[in-house]
């Protein structure tokens, strides 16, 4: 039996800079908190409206339109990315034009155009346009089609990140180009596609607030309707901010686990979750 070597004992490096910056940050933070606590804000109202019907249903609509528009964006993104990479010049030009048009104009303008189509097309499919192009549909099309242009670039980068040898191997086994894309290339591209898509979705949760301008009853729209009555503007804006933070936090957390899931095969072992890392840290921490 060999004896275990003695554990090294060393004086750790002192990080004075960290302490100084921490103090500065905390002081600034305290000043801001103090200012807001003295301001003429009725925090009771902020809290009370967190669970008001109009706000909760607004949060639900924010979530609904974000999920649907993001799903539409992902679907369009895959289609246009594949078109962009195809050998057919018609496909590549159509895709290029789509991305150019929808990335090149503000999404708020696009939303307003969809919503106001009734001005130029009084009827659509035999119905009055104002019946067809509801705020919901206008918001979905505006946000979803705009998102598709961004997703197309993300998916294209993802597909480009997959080694050509993979396509070659799949082809040599007799897989058709479509099967190769679905079974071999896209699953591997996911690892590159998912992190920015998560960011896109979190952006979507917030960008969907623009739909308040076209009367879609999402969170901000609910808040605006309340504060035009009671004039407690900042209180209500704080209420929806809390809701937005809640939604974005939940989905940031979800994104983390999705990324882990798609890291499979790329690394020998899955990376540790923050929880398992914490547990491991506590276990191995030497007792002083």
């Amino acid at each position, binding site marked *: 039996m060999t004896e275990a070597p003695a554990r090294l004992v060393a004086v750790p490096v002192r990080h004075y800079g960290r302490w100084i910056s921490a103090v500065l940050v905390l002081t600034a933070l305290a000043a801001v908190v103090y200012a807001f606590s003295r301001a003429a804000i009725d925090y009771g109202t902020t809290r009370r409206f967190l669970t008001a019907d109009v706000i909760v249903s607004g949060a639900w609509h924010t979530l609904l339109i974000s999920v649907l528009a993001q799903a539409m964006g992902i679907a369009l993104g895959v289609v246009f990315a594949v078109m962009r990479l195809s050998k057919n010049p018609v496909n590549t030009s159509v895709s290029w034009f789509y991305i150019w048009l929808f990335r090149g104009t503000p999404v708020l303008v696009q939303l307003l155009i969809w919503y106001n189509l009734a001005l130029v097309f009084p009827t659509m499919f035999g119905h009055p346009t104002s019946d067809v192009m509801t705020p919901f549909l206008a918001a979905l099309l505006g946000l979803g089609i705009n998102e598709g242009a961004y997703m197309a670039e993300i998916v294209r980068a993802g597909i480009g990140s997959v*080694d050509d*040898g*993979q396509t*070659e*191997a*799949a*082809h*040599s*086994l*007799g*897989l*058709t*180009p479509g*099967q190769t894309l679905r*079974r*071999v290339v896209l*699953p*591997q591209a996911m690892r590159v596609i998912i992190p920015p898509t998560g960011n896109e979705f979190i952006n979507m949760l917030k960008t969907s607030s623009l739909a308040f301008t076209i009367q879609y009853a999402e969170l901000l729209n609910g808040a605006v309707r309340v504060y035009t009555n009671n004039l407690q503007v900042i209180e209500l804006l704080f209420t929806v901010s809390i809701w937005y933070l809640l939604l974005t936090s939940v989905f940031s957390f979800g994104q983390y686990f999705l990324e882990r899931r798609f890291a*499979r*095969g*790329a*690394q*020998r072992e899955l990376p540790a979750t923050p929880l398992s890392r914490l547990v491991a840290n506590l276990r191995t921490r030497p007792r002083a």
Partner: protein
Amino acid sequence: MSTPMVLAEQVHKSFGRLEVLKGIDLEVQRGEVMCLLGPSGSGKSTFLRCINHLEKIDAGRLSVDGHLVGYREAHGKLHELKEKETAKARSEIGMVFQRFNLFPHMTALGNVVEAPVLVCRKSRAEAEEAARTLLDRVGLADKVDAYPAQLSGGQQQRVAIARALAMEPKLMLFDEPTSALDPELVGDVLDVMRGLANEHQITMIVVTHEIGFAREVADTVVFMDGGVVVEAGEPEQVLTRPREERTRSFLGKVL
């Protein structure tokens, strides 16, 4: 005599202005093992890729098992094959790459099962049973559920061979299957290939720098240089008594 498995007549291939194949004439018989030697850049990989429809040839005729590669001949005219037809033709030819090219998001079993299920429409259960037998044959019965990143290079290459065999190909193409491997792992892969040649009589074209393997297993050894076949013949003749000066100097360098 039956139709040869591979018949190349004056095959030409260029990439832009670079002419890589300058008139290849070759014949591979059924059950034959052909080893292809040659310096880097001589067009060995390109030729294999042409046989497997991964590249289009510019001139000449190339056929596998009596069928033209990439074209259909009707009424004296050549018609390009459709995507589906090309995929079908490729599914009958197995290919093993220098860098393995396993699908990293699938287990060893998943890699082997994929094509039989997708291309041959086999049931998953049936394909898995066949895949287990194949993985056992290449000595990896215990690695069925491992992902490629958890396997050594030699193990990955053996999975890749099993994956190609799962399609029951009539022809196997190997493009330097052992050159990316650590020396001590080369033997396992060569053993598997030797088994395929001796016990299963699979027609194989092997691009390799393993002269010992070529001498022992090949029926024919072909030496390529500068996009042409310089010399072809029995291993004994080409490897020990080469007729051409170029062959001699190449062998002098690799031996």
